[in-house]
C-alpha cells in the first residue's frame, strides 16, 4: 500500500461520506442511528463496525480492510448513482435471525449496521430449508429476477455457474480485495480453501457464508458415568471413550442402544437427501490418505471392495439407530438429541450452539454435550479419520441483478473475517464458523463452546469436500437413491454400488468428460492428507 493511494482513499472516503449524507436525507431512518453509533462507539482508528457491547472492537474495522473497502466502494457507487436503494438477499429461513436479531445485548443487528453504514436497505427473503436450490432455479429459469443475491448449497456452485444464472465475480474480487486467504484471519487452507469454497473452474462465483463441516457429538453424561464405563469395559475389554475407529463407534453405539428407554446408539442421518454424507465418511476413510470417488480419468471408484464394504457397514449400522432413521431429517435428529434420545450423533457444527444452550429450555442435554473427531480406520499403521463438507451455504450474485457490484460488495462485507465472526457468534441462525478468525473469536467460542470449537477446527483439517463438479446434483441423487434402496433392503450393497456406477457414467457423459476431469482434479486438490497416530 503506497501512501498516495492511502490518501486518495481517505479523501474519497470523506467525499463519499458527504455524498452519503445527501442521499440519506431521503431516508433519515437509517441516518440517525448510524450517526449516533459512529459518534460514540467506534474504537480508536476504526472506521466502521458494530458498537454498544463489550468486545465490539474485535468486529470493527480500520481503513484498508476488506470491510472498509466494501463500504467505501459502496459509497463511491452511490455517489456515481450506481447503487440500488435496496438489495434483495434470498436466504434459508433459519439463517435470517443471524442478520436481523441484535447480538449480543446492546449491539445492532447486522442488517441495521449495514443499512446505517451504507443507506442501502437489506431486504432478506426467507426460503424454506432444503428448497434453496429449487427457488434459485425457478428464478433463473423463469427470469423472475426476484433476488440480487442467491444463497445456495456450495455443491451447486458448478451447476449454477453453468446456467449463466450467477455472475463471475473475478473483476470485483480483483478490484476490492476481500483477503479471503489472509493467513491469520482467512479461510482454513489459505488460497486452496478459498478456491474450494468460492471458485468454480478457476473463477470466483460464490462467497462462502457457512461452515457445514459434519461434526461428531456425544453425550458426556453417558460417557462419563462410572457405571456405564465399567459395564462397557467389562463387555468390550477397553475403556469407554469417544470412538476413534468405526469399529469402536459401532460397538459403543450398540452398547448404548436402548430403544425401550428412549435412547438410541447413534443418530447420524440415514434418510434420503442427507444420509449419504455419513456414507461418505465411511467410504473416503477406506484408503490412506483418501479413498477417492473418481480416478483421475473420471472413472468412478465406488463399485469396488471399499465401496461395497462401506455400504454394508452403513446398512448394518441401522441396528443402533432409531427405527425411523430412514424417515428422519435433521429437524427430527436435533429434536431427538435435544430430548436426550441419542448417545452419539453426527451433525452440522451448530448442534452444540443450539442444544447445549442454557437459553434453550426445551433441551435436556444442556451441559451434557461433547464433541469428538470423526471415527476412522487403521491403515498401514496410521489412523485415517475423515469427515465431509456438505451443504454449506454460499452466496452468489444473480445475473439478473441490476447492481451486481453493489451486491458483491455486500457479500465481501458480510463474508469478511470481522463481520462474519460477529455474525456466526449469533445463535439466531445456521451460519457456522469456517474462517481462522472465527475459530479464535471469544464470542464465537462462547456460543459454540470451547470444547466444540477445537474439535471443529481439527475436523476441518480432516474434511473431504463432497462432489461440487457440474452434475453434482445428479451424481448425488444417483448415489442417494441407491443407498436408500440398500438401506430399505430392496438392493444389496453390491447392487447399489454397481447401479450408482452405471448412473454416474451416464451423468458424466451428459456433463462432458473433459469438463468433469478438470473439476475432479480441482476438487481432489482440496482433499486432506493428514493422518493420525494409532492409539
Amino acid at each position: 500500500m503506497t501512501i498516495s493511494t492511502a490518501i486518495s482513499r481517505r479523501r474519497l472516503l470523506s467525499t463519499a461520506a458527504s455524498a452519503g449524507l445527501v442521499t440519506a436525507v431521503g431516508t433519515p431512518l437509517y441516518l440517525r442511528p448510524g450517526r449516533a453509533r459512529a459518534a460514540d462507539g467506534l474504537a480508536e482508528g476504526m472506521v466502521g463496525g458494530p458498537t454498544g457491547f463489550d468486545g465490539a472492537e474485535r468486529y470493527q474495522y480500520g481503513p484498508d480492510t476488506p470491510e472498509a473497502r466494501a463500504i467505501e466502494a459502496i459509497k463511491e457507487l452511490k455517489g456515481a448513482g450506481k447503487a440500488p436503494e435496496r438489495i434483495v438477499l434470498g436466504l434459508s429461513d433459519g439463517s435470517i435471525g443471524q442478520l436481523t436479531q441484535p447480538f449480543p445485548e446492546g449491539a445492532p443487528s447486522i442488517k441495521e449496521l449495514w443499512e446505517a453504514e451504507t443507506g442501502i436497505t437489506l431486504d432478506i427473503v426467507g426460503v424454506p430449508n432444503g428448497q434453496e436450490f429449487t427457488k434459485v432455479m425457478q428464478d433463473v429459469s423463469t427470469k423472475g429476477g426476484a433476488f440480487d443475491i442467491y444463497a445456495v448449497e456450495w455443491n451447486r456452485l458448478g451447476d449454477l455457474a453453468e446456467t449463466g444464472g450467477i455472475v463471475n465475480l473475478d473483476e470485483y474480487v480483483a478490484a476490492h480485495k476481500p483477503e479471503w486467504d489472509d493467513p491469520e484471519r482467512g479461510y482454513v487452507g489459505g488460497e486452496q480453501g478459498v478456491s474450494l469454497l468460492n471458485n468454480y473452474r478457476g473463477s470466483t462465483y460464490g462467497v462462502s457464508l457457512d461452515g457445514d463441516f459434519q461434526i461428531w457429538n456425544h453425550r458426556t453424561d453417558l460417557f462419563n458415568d462410572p457405571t456405564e464405563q465399567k459395564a462397557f469395559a467389562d463387555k468390550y475389554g477397553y475403556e469407554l471413550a469417544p470412538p476413534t475407529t468405526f469399529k469402536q463407534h459401532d460397538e459403543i453405539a450398540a452398547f448404548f442402544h436402548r430403544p425401550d428407554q428412549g435412547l438410541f446408539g447413534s443418530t447420524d442421518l440415514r434418510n434420503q437427501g442427507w444420509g449419504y454424507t455419513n456414507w461418505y465418511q465411511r467410504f473416503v476413510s477406506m484408503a490412506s490418505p483418501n479413498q477417492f470417488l473418481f480416478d483421475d480419468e473420471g472413472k468412478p471408484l465406488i463399485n469396488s471392495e471399499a465401496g461395497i464394504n462401506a455400504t454394508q457397514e452403513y446398512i448394518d449400522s441401522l441396528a443402533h439407530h432409531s427405527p425411523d432413521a430412514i424417515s428422519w431429517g435433521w429437524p427430527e435428529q436435533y429434536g431427538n438429541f435435544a430430548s436426550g434420545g441419542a448417545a452419539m450423533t453426527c451433525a452440522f457444527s451448530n448442534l452444540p450452539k443450539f442444544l447445549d444452550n442454557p437459553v434453550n429450555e426445551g433441551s435436556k442435554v444442556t451441559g451434557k454435550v461433547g464433541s469428538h473427531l470423526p471415527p476412522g480406520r487403521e491403515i498401514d499403521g496410521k489412523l485415517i479419520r475423515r469427515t465431509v463438507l456438505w451443504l454449506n451455504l454460499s452466496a452468489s450474485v444473480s445475473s439478473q441483478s441490476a447492481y451486481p457490484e453493489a451486491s458483491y460488495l455486500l457479500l465481501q462485507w458480510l463474508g469478511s473475517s470481522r463481520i462474519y465472526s460477529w455474525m456466526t457468534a449469533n445463535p439466531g441462525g445456521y451460519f457456522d464458523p469456517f474462517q481462522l478468525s472465527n475459530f479464535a473469536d471469544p464470542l464465537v467460542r462462547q456460543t459454540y463452546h470451547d470444547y466444540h470449537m477445537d474439535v471443529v477446527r481439527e475436523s476441518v483439517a480432516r474434511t473431504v469436500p463432497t462432489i461440487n463438479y457440474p452434475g453434482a446434483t445428479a451424481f448425488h441423487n444417483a448415489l442417494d437413491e441407491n443407498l436408500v434402496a440398500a438401506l430399505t433392503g430392496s438392493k444389496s450393497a453390491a447392487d447399489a454400488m454397481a447401479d450408482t456406477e452405471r448412473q454416474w457414467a451416464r451423468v458424466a457423459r451428459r456433463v462432458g468428460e473433459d469438463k468433469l476431469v478438470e473439476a475432479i482434479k480441482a476438487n481432489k486438490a482440496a482433499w486432506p492428507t493428514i493422518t493420525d497416530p494409532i492409539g
Partner: protein
Amino acid sequence: MNRSLSFEIFRYAAILAIVALSLVPTLWMASMAFKPIAEWSATGADLTWWPKSPTLDNFRFLFGESSSDLIVALDRTATQPILASLLAAIFGTLIAMIAGTSAAYGLSRFGSGGNLPLALIQLRIFPPMAVMIPVMIMWAFLGLIDTWYGLALVYGIVTMPFAFWLMKTFFDDMPREIEDAALVEGCSRLRVFWKITLPMMRPALASSALFVFILNWSDYLIGLLLTTRDWVTIPVYMASLSSSMTGQLYGAKAALGLIAAIPPVVLGIAIQKHLVRGLTFGALKQ
C-alpha cells in the same frame, strides 16, 4: 324404514368406531396445538396424548411473540400467509364460480361451448405438476409470480371444471317451464338468469362454492411453485416452521393447521342446510 334393535346397536357401534378412528389425527393435531414444547415429542419415548400443561404459546408464537419455550422468533409471522391463502382461495373461487356457472348455463340453455365438458374434464384430470414449468415461465413473464392474484387466477382455472360440472347438472335438471313463463312475461334472458334461475340454484351454488373453496384452500403444490415470499400460502409457509433449537415446530404446525381448518368449517356450517341437497348433482329429481 323400521329396523330391528340389533340393527340400531350395530349402527351405533359401527358409526362410533369409525368416528373414533377418523378423529384420531384431528385430535392429535388439536392436542398438539396446545402442548408446550416439552410434550411435543413424537420421536422420543414419552408420548403425551393430552397436554399436561396446556398453553397458547404455539398460537402466540405464530403471530410473532417468542415464548419462554420457543426461544427462536419467527422472521415472518403467520399473518401474511393466512391473508395470502384467504385472498387466493376466495378470488380463485370467485373466478371459478363465475366462469364455471355462466359457461354451464350457456351450454345447458343455448348449447354454446360444446367442447367445454371434455376440455374441462381434461383440465381437471391433468396433474398440475406436469404443466408447471410452462406455467411458471408464463407467470414470470406476466409478472404474476408471487402475487395473490396470480395464484388466484391459477386456482380459478384449475377448479373451474368443478364449478362447471356441478352447476351444469343442476341447470340441465331445472324445469324450463319456470324460465319460459318469465320469458313470456317479457323478461330478458339475462334478467331471467339473474332473477329467477340463480336464486333457485342457491343450494347448488353454495355447495359448489364450498367445494371449490376447499380445493383452493388445500393447495400446496401450486403455491409452492408460484410464490416466493410475500404471498406464500399457509401450506407452503408450514415448511418454514422448524428450527435448529427444537427441530420441527410441531406445536406451531398443529396450531396453524387448526387455524387453517377454520374457514372451511365456518363455510361448511354456513351452508349446511344446502349441503346435502346441493350435492345431489341434480341427478335424482328425474
